[in-house]
C-alpha cells in the first residue's frame, strides 16, 4: 500500500491545516496533501479514494486548485456502494460545474442510478442532476425524471420535481412533457411534494403558454382550496414556524396564484376571498408572517383589479413602512415601487415616510427609497421634494452622493417649472457635489444659461458668490469660469438685477482674480484650466483696465508643460499683442446655444464627448490663431481628447448660414464661409470645428460673393478637402495664409498649376510660413506606384536653412524619398526646393494614400519644426 495515501485521515489533515500560523505554512501542508492524493490517484488506490476526495473538497473550499480530482468523483459514482456514491456525487457537485466536459462522462452513471432499486441512490442522482446538469444532460435524462415524478416514494417525487425545474430552465422545449405529471403533484398531501410541485408549475407557466392556460383552467380552484386548508390548518408542530403552518407552502401557493391570476379576471375572482383572508388574518409580529403578507400583497397588486383588496394591500405596506425593523421597511419600499404603477395616489400618501428613508443609515434602504422618490416626483411636488433631496445632499455619505446627485440632476432637468429655478437648483447641486456631476449635466446647464438671456447677470453673480465658498467643486468652477468669461461685464456692472438679489460689488480685478485662481489651483484639471484661459482672453477685451494683467497671466502659462495649455497661451498672447483690431470681434459673446439640438444630440449616438458651447469656445481661439488650416486639423484632433468637442450650436449656425443639412464635413469648410461673413462669423464657424459639411455642398453664391479675393478661399477650401472631393482639387491652387486673411492684407494671387499629369496637384501642406505642393505621376504599367514631386515654397520673409522634409506612411504603403534639390529655401517664394517621393500602395484601389509629414528648418539658426497630416490625395493613387 502506498505509504502516502494511507497517511493522514481527513480529520488530521483539517487539524494540520488549522494549526498553520501563516499562509505559507498552510500552502506547504496543502501541497504535501495534494502530492499524496495525486500519488494515490496514479496508483488507482481504491481503499482511500473516498477519503482523498473528501480531503480534496476541503482543499477546494480553501481556494486551491483541485481539478486533478475530477475523475475520482466519476470513479466513486461508478462504484456500487452507497457511501462511495454519496461522497462521489458530493464531489461532483462541488468540484465541477456544468461547463466541464468531464461532466458528460457521468451521464451514463446518472442514468443507471436514476433506475437504481435503492431510493437513496436515486435521490443522490436526482440531487446531482438538479444541481449541475447541462442542457445536453437535461435532454438525455428528462424521460427518467418524468418517470420518477410518479415514483412511489414521496421524497423521490419531490426531488424529481425540482430536477424537472432545472431541466426546463435549461431546455424550455421540454416543458410540455412535464405539464401532466406536474398537475398531478398539486393534489398531493405531502408538503415536500406539494411545495416542489407548486414550484414546478410556476416554472412551467413561465416556460410555456400552454402550461399557463392548462393550469389556469384546471388547477386554480384546487390551489385556492389547498391554500385555504393550509391557512386554516390547526397547529402542526412538524411544519410550524412562529405559529404559522408551513409559511413556505403559503408563499409558493401565493406565487403560483399570482402567475395564474395575472391578466385573467376569472382566475383572479376565484382567489379574491382567500387573498383577503390571508391579508387580514396573518399574524405580522414575526418574520414568517410578514413574509406571507409581503407575498400576498404582491399577488394582490399583480392580479386583476379588485379595489377593496388593493386598499388592504396598500394599508399593509403602510404598516410595513412604519415598522421599526429595517428588513420590513426595505421590502415595503420594494413593494411600493411596484404599487406605484397601480395606485400612484396611495403611494404619494406615504411620501414623507419614504423621504425619511432616503436619509436612513442603511445603504440598501437609502437606495430603494431614492429610486422610489424618483418615481414619486411630478410637476406638482418637484419643488419641495428637490429641496429636501438637495438639503440632504449636504450631509449624505460620500459614497451615496454619486447616486443622489445623478437622480437630483435628472429630476431638475425633467420637471423644472422655470429657468430661474433650474439654474438655482443646479447651482446648489454644483456647490454641494460638483465633483459628482457628470459632464453632460453641466454642459446642459450652460446651454440653459445661454438661452436665459434675462438671467445672464443674475446667474453670473450667483456663480461668483458660489465660487467664493465651493472652490473645490470642479464642475462648478467650470460653469462659473465660462459664465464669467461670457458675461463678466454683467458681473461687475450689476446688469439685470433681479428683485430677489442682494447687490454685490465686484471689481474687474476681482473677476480676474477668481479665474486666475482656477488656473493656478493645482487640483484644477486640464479642461478647467483651458476654459479659464479662454475666459481670460474674453475678459481681456471686456475689461480693458485689466488687459495687461491678463496678458501676464497668459504669458505665465506659455511655459506650461501641458501642450494644450502652452499652445493656447501662446496663441492668445499673440492675439492680445498683435491683433488688437480683431480681438474684440474674436471674443464676442457666444451665440445662443440651441437647446433642442443639444438635447437631440445627447439623445442621439454622440460620442461620449458631448458637445457644448464651452467646448466650442474652447476650440475657437485655436482656429483663429492658428496660422493655417492644415495644422488646424491636427489641433482639433488634439483637442478631442480633453475638451468636449463638436458644438451643436455652432453647427446650427452653420446650418442656418448654408441652408444645408448637416452632414459630415470638415471644419475648414466653415473657414470658407467665414471669410465671407466677416470675422465674428468666422469666429463662430471656427468654433464649430467639426460636423464636417461637404464643402461642395456650400451654395455657390457664398463663394462668389467673397469680396476681395476669391482665390484664398478656394485655396483654403482646397486644404479642407477630404480626399473624396478630389474633383474640387483641380481648382487653381493659390494660398494666402489665414493669418494674412485676418490681418486684412490678402495677397498672393493664385498660381495656376497644371502639370498635365492625370492627377491634379494638391497643396499638401500649408502653414503661415511654408507651403508644400504635390504633383503626381504614375509610371506606366505599375498602377500601385505613384511618383510625387514635392515643391516647397517659403512664404515668410526669412531664409530657411538646414531644411529637412520627412514623411511617414501607414503599413500598407511603401515610401521612398529621393534627396531634395537643396536644403536652403529662399525667402518669400523666390525659389523653391523640390524633392521626389515614390509611394507604392499595396491596397491600391481600396485605400487612398495618406501621409504624415514633418518639416524641420532653421531661421537665423533657430530650430523650427512643423508637422501635419496629408489626407487630401486625389483618389485612385
Amino acid at each position, binding site marked *: 500500500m502506498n505509504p502516502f495515501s494511507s497517511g493522514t485521515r481527513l480529520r488530521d489533515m483539517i487539524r494540520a491545516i488549522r494549526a498553520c500560523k501563516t499562509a505559507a505554512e498552510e500552502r506547504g501542508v496543502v501541497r504535501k496533501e495534494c502530492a499524496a492524493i495525486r500519488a494515490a490517484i496514479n496508483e488507482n488506490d481504491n481503499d482511500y479514494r473516498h477519503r482523498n476526495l473528501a480531503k480534496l473538497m476541503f482543499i477546494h473550499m480553501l481556494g486551491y486548485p483541485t481539478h486533478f480530482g475530477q475523475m475520482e468523483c466519476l470513479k466513486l459514482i461508478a462504484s456500487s*456502494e452507497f*457511501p462511495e456514491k454519496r461522497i462521489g456525487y458530493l464531489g461532483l457537485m462541488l468540484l465541477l460545474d456544468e461547463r466541464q466536459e468531464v461532466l458528460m462522462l457521468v451521464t451514463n452513471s446518472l442514468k443507471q442510478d436514476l433506475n437504481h432499486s435503492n431510493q437513496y441512490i436515486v435521490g443522490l442522482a436526482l440531487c446531482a442532476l438538479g*444541481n449541475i446538469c447541462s442542457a445536453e444532460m437535461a435532454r438525455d435524462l428528462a424521460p427518467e425524471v418524468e418517470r420518477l415524478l410518479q415514483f412511489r416514494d414521496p421524497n423521490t417525487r*419531490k426531488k424529481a420535481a425540482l430536477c424537472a425545474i432545472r431541466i426546463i430552465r435549461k431546455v424550455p422545449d421540454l416543458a410540455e412533457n412535464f405539464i401532466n405529471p406536474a398537475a398531478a403533484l398539486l393534489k398531493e398531501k405531502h408538503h415536500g411534494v406539494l411545495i416542489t410541485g407548486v414550484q414546478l408549475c410556476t416554472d412551467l407557466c413561465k416556460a410555456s403558454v400552454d402550461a399557463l392556460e392548462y393550469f389556469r383552467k384546471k388547477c386554480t380552484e384546487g390551489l385556492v382550496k389547498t391554500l385555504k386548508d393550509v391557512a386554516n390548518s390547526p397547529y402542526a408542530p*412538524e411544519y410550524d414556524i412562529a405559529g404559522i403552518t408551513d409559511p413556505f407552502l403559503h408563499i409558493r401557493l401565493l*406565487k403560483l396564484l399570482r402567475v395564474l391570476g395575472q391578466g385573467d379576471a376569472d382566475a383572479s375572482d376565484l382567489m379574491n376571498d382567500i387573498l383577503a383572508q390571508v391579508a387580514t388574518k396573518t399574524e405580522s409580529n414575526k418574520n414568517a408572517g410578514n413574509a406571507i403578507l409581503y407575498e400576498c400583497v404582491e399577488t394582490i397588486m399583480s392580479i386583476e383589479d379588485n379595489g377593496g383588496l388593493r386598499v388592504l394591500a396598500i394599508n399593509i405596506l403602510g404598516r410595513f413602512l412604519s415598522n421599526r425593523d429595517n428588513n420590513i421597511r426595505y421590502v415595503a419600499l420594494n413593494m411600493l415601487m411596484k404599487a406605484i404603477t397601480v395606485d400612484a395616489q396611495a403611494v404619494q400618501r406615504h411620501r414623507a415616510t419614504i423621504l425619511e428613508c432616503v436619509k436612513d443609515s442603511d445603504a440598501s*434602504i437609502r437606495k430603494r427609497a431614492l429610486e422610489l422618490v424618483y418615481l414619486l416626483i411630478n410637476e406638482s411636488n418637484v419643488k419641495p421634494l428637490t429641496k429636501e433631496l438637495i438639503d440632504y445632499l449636504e450631509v449624505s455619505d460620500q459614497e451615496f452622493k454619486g447616486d443622489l446627485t445623478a437622480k437630483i440632476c435628472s429630476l431638475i432637468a425633467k420637471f423644472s417649472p422655470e429657468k430661474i429655478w433650474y439654474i438655482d437648483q443646479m447651482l446648489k447641486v454644483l456647490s454641494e457635489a460638483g465633483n459628482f456631476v457628470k459632464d453632460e449635466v453641466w454642459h446642459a446647464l450652460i446651454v440653459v444659461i445661454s438661452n436665459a438671456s434675462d438671467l445672464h447677470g443674475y446667474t453670473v453673480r450667483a456663480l461668483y458668490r458660489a465660487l467664493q465658498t465651493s472652490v473645490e467643486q470642479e464642475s462648478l468652477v467650470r460653469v462659473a469660469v465660462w459664465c464669467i468669461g461670457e458675461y463678466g461685464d454683467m458681473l461687475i456692472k450689476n446688469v439685470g438685477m433681479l428683485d430677489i438679489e442682494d447687490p454685490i460689488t465686484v471689481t474687474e480685478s476681482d473677476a480676474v482674480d477668481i479665474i486666475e485662481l482656477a488656473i493656478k489651483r493645482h487640483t484644477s484639471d486640464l479642461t478647467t484650466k483651458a476654459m479659464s484661459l479662454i475666459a481670460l482672453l474674453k475678459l481681456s477685451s471686456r475689461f480693458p483696465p485689466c488687459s495687461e494683467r491678463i496678458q501676464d497671466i497668459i504669458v505665465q502659462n506659455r511655459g506650461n508643460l501641458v501642450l494644450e495649455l502652452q499652445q493656447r497661451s501662446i496663441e492668445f498672447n499673440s492675439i492680445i499683442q498683435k491683433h488688437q483690431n480683431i480681438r474684440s470681434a474674436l471674443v464676442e459673446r457666444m451665440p445662443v446655444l440651441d437647446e433642442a439640438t443639444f438635447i437631440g444630440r445627447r439623445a442621439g449616438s454622440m460620442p461620449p464627448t458631448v458637445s457644448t458651447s464651452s467646448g466650442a469656445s474652447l476650440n475657437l481661439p485655436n482656429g483663429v490663431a492658428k496660422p493655417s488650416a492644415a495644422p488646424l486639423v491636427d489641433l482639433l484632433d488634439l483637442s478631442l481628447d480633453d475638451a468636449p468637442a463638436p458644438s451643436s450650436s455652432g453647427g446650427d449656425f452653420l446650418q442656418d448660414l448654408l441652408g444645408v443639412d448637416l452632414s459630415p464635413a470638415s471644419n475648414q469648410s466653415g473657414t470658407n464661409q467665414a471669410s465671407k461673413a466677416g470675422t465674428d462669423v468666422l469666429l463662430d464657424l471656427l468654433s464649430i470645428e467639426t460636423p464636417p459639411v461637404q464643402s461642395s455642398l456650400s451654395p455657390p453664391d457664398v463663394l462668389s460673393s467673397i469680396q476681395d479675393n476669391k482665390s484664398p478661399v478656394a485655396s483654403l477650401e482646397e486644404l479642407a478637402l477630404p480626399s473624396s472631393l478630389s474633383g474640387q482639387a483641380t481648382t487653381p491652387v493659390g494660398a494666402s495664409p489665414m493669418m494674412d486673411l485676418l490681418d486684412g492684407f490678402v495677397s498672393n494671387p493664385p498660381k495656376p498649376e497644371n502639370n498635365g499629369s492625370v492627377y491634379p496637384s494638391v497643396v499638401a501642406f500649408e502653414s503661415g510660413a511654408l507651403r508644400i505642393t504635390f504633383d503626381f505621376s504614375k509610371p506606366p504599367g505599375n498602377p500601385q506606384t505613384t511618383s510625387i514631386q514635392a515643391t516647397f515654397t517659403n512664404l515668410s520673409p526669412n531664409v530657411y536653412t538646414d531644411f529637412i522634409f520627412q514623411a511617414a506612411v501607414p503599413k500598407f504603403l511603401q515610401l521612398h524619398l529621393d534627396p531634395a534639390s537643396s536644403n536652403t529655401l529662399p525667402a518669400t517664394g523666390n525659389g523653391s526646393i523640390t524633392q521626389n517621393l515614390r509611394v507604392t500602395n499595396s491596397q491600391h484601389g481600396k485605400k487612398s494614400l495618406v501621409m504624415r509629414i514633418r518639416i524641420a528648418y532653421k531661421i537665423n539658426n533657430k530650430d523650427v519644426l512643423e508637422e501635419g497630416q496629408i489626407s487630401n490625395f486625389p483618389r485612385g493613387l
Partner: protein
Amino acid sequence: MIHFVILNNRQGKVRLTKWYSTYSQKERSKVIRELTGIILSRGPKLCNFVEWRGLKVVYKRYAGLYFSMCIDQDDNELETLDIIHHYVEMLDRYFLNVCELDLIYNFHKAYYILDELLLAGELQESSRRTIARLVAAQDSLVETAREQASLLGDLVKQAM
C-alpha cells in the same frame, strides 16, 4: 431561485459554498471575495439585504457565522431569511448545538443536509423531521456499509 449559498465566518473564511447557477471557478472566488467584504462591513442594525449585480443577497449572522443566499430581484427576501433559519435549525438539530468547528470537521455533513433542503436552487422540504429522517437514514446506510467492511476485514484476517 437561489443562485448560491455561502457560509463564511467573521474573518471571511469560507465554510461552505453551494452554486445552483453556473459560475466558473474564477468567478466563484471573485464573488466570494466581493460579497464577504460587503457583508462583513455592514453594521448589526442594518437590514439583511444587499443589492448586488442586479440580484439580491440575503444574509444573516448566527454567532460568528454568516449565512448568505443570493436570490433573484423579485424573490421574497423575508422568506429567504426563513429558509436560512430553517437550515440553521437543521444543522443545530443534527450536530446538537452546532458550532463552527462542527462545520469545519464535518463539512460534508453540512452539505448533505443542505442537499436535502435545497435542490436546483429551490426549497425541497419544509418539514424538519423529514429532513432529519432522510439524513439519518443515509448516514445509517454508510454506517452499515462500514461495519460490513470491517467485519469482512476481520474475517479476512482470521482466514489468514
